């Protein structure tokens, strides 16, 4: 295991600038998750570390050594590819054993086999060990790909959306399992995902990439509670944060430079206007209602739609032409109908300036 640093690395593909001036330090034994929209350069970042792409500028350090121009085989990384990249002509067993047969390992057949079976069990593919790797479902292939990375003990694990095609239950199992393995081995791991739960639960730190740039890097809590700009704020949160132009709504008291207000769904409280009126004591519909902080937003909204999700409801509201989403209890639809008017009030709002930066 080793620490990994990128120093102002840039990579272009023809006219497309995939990565611009990216610097990141990943400590030894740290679990870093990269989040970002599609095309942000997440895969490219992993490939630069693995040595599958050569940076146009900048330096790549692995274990303190300058590896910028080293071949992938010299870097001792293991990679779970986004498109699996299994060896199609080999069985699952041979796929898993492939990295171990490198002379860098010097293991005998018995040791290799023991290691392969252990890993196969870990990723729950041991019943298919003798299948051809092309005779597998997408989720099974993905598990083999993860297994092929885990058989080794590399300087850093690079995983590109490794759980994306698994069902919810297996994904949950493997998420816990991966985190456990990482902690146990003290492994350095750089992980790409679109899944918020994976990012929040597994990461020591989350890095938000956008347009080839690292926008913010911090603990999950920092990223969630203290986003540096609108883009970061919109990355995390299910449903995504509500964004309202400050001027658009009468009665909003916002800081001077703020032009956009962001309210996380759990910070948007709704009250029934029928029973309370606009000024009465709040009669909570969704859940217990804490006192609002100086009522940054305190107005009336129309309920457009209720989405029943089982444990909770999503309420789609509109204030004039602006749409908002908030959460309510599972049985809220018995109390209010679409089309009715509700009172909404925000807590802990985040404010952004014209350019989208926090104020």
């Amino acid at each position, binding site marked *: 295991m080793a620490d990994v640093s990128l120093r102002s690395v840039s990579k272009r593909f023809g006219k497309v600038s995939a990565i611009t001036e990216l610097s990141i330090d990943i400590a030894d034994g740290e679990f870093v998750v990269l989040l970002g929209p599609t095309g942000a350069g997440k895969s490219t970042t992993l490939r630069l570390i693995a040595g599958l792409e050569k940076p146009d500028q900048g330096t790549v350090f692995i274990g303190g050594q300058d590896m910028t121009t080293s071949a992938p085989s010299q870097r001792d990384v293991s*990679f779970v590819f986004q498109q699996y*990249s299994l060896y199609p002509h080999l069985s699952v067993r041979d796929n898993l054993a*492939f990295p171990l047969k490198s002379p860098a390992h010097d293991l005998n057949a018995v040791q290799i086999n023991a290691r392969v079976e252990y890993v196969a069990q870990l990723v729950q593919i041991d019943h298919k060990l003798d299948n051809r790797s092309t005779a597998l479902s997408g989720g099974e292939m993905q598990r083999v790909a993860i297994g092929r990375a885990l058989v080794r003990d590399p300087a850093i694990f690079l995983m590109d959306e490794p759980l994306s095609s698994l069902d919810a239950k297996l994904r949950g199992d493997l998420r816990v399992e991966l985190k456990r393995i990482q902690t146990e081995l003290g492994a350095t791991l750089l992980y790409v995902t679109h899944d918020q739960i994976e990012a929040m639960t597994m990461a020591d730190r989350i890095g938000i990439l956008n347009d080839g740039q690292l926008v913010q890097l911090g603990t999950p809590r920092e990223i969630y509670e203290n986003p540096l700009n609108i883009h970061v704020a919109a990355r995390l949160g299910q449903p995504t944060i509500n964004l309202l132009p400050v001027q658009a709504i009468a009665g909003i008291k916002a800081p001077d430079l703020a032009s956009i207000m962001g309210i996380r769904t759990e910070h948007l409280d709704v009250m029934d206007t029928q029973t309370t009126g606009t000024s009465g004591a709040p009669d909570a519909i969704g859940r217990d209602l804490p006192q609002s902080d100086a009522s940054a937003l305190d107005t009336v909204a129309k309920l457009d739609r209720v989405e029943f999700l089982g444990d909770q409801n999503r309420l789609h509201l509109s204030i004039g032409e602006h749409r908002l989403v908030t959460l309510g209890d599972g049985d809220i639809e018995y109390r209010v109908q679409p089309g009715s008017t509700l009172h909404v009030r925000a807590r802990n709002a985040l404010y952004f300036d014209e350019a989208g930066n926090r104020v």
Partner: protein
Amino acid sequence: MAQAKSSILERSADKAAALTPARMSRSIKGLSDRAVAWWFIAPTIILLLAINIFPLIWAVKLSFTNYKANRLNAVVKDVGLRNYERILTDPDIWLAMQATAHFVFWTIFLQTLIGFALAYLIDRKFRGHAFWTTIILIPMMLSPAVVGNFWRFLYQPQIGLFNYIVTFFTGAEPSSFQMLGSVDLAPWAIVIVDTWMWTPYVMLICLAGLRSIPDYIYEAAEVDRASNWRRFWSITLPMALPFIMLAVLFRGIENFKMFDMVTLLTGGGPGSTTEVASITLKREAFEKWRTGYSSAFAIILFVAVFGLANIYVKALNRVKQR
């Protein structure tokens, strides 16, 4: 074989019927989809029967007689299996089979080796690789008649370029050896020409095989720290193997019935050193006019090629499924 063909046809008729859009089948009144499909493939079937299947059956029939095509009025006697017996015990026939085996083995060996090596180099995508690919393909595009005559000149002991090139490298007198006239060298002379002409073809098929291996497989192998050598043996070669085997099959079948190049270069000589099976067959059939006898020989060759090819295709499928 006739039976196999017709079952393939039947299956394609069914398939065609299944693929016919409902709208179309309804507009052809009074005919079921299947019947329509049969009408569409009938011309092909009739043509096949007339020029392939019928002569084949006729040849089988003739192979049991002493028929001679140049004596139409002679009495044709049924001789049973005598023709087959005589062929299988005829030492000349076995010599011809040996010459054929030698020719087939060495051409396949050399063409696969050189063809794959060239494909491997071309696949590196060095500068100007498209240009070199075109250059390499030229021999394959020439007519065998041109190639045969052209090499006859090259092999000329006095004025031929080939002998001079050999001289340049070995120092032997150019006229001290005759590629086409010497018993020892003539079989190799033919192997060289066939290799020169058909290696590009094998290269093309191998190149298709190499290009079919996606880059990301190599990337995974690189990350897994496989050496170049191991990448070649455990990825490149096994993944290209079905293509290589296909090339071997095509060249094998083709060279088993090799006729044109041998006729043009040596005509089977000197003596009968380069007399491959098809030349013997032609001599028996159209010089000695032993039609019944040569029919039997043709059937034996056909069964041999067909059987070998079938075994081989089974092996090929196993490799592909691995």
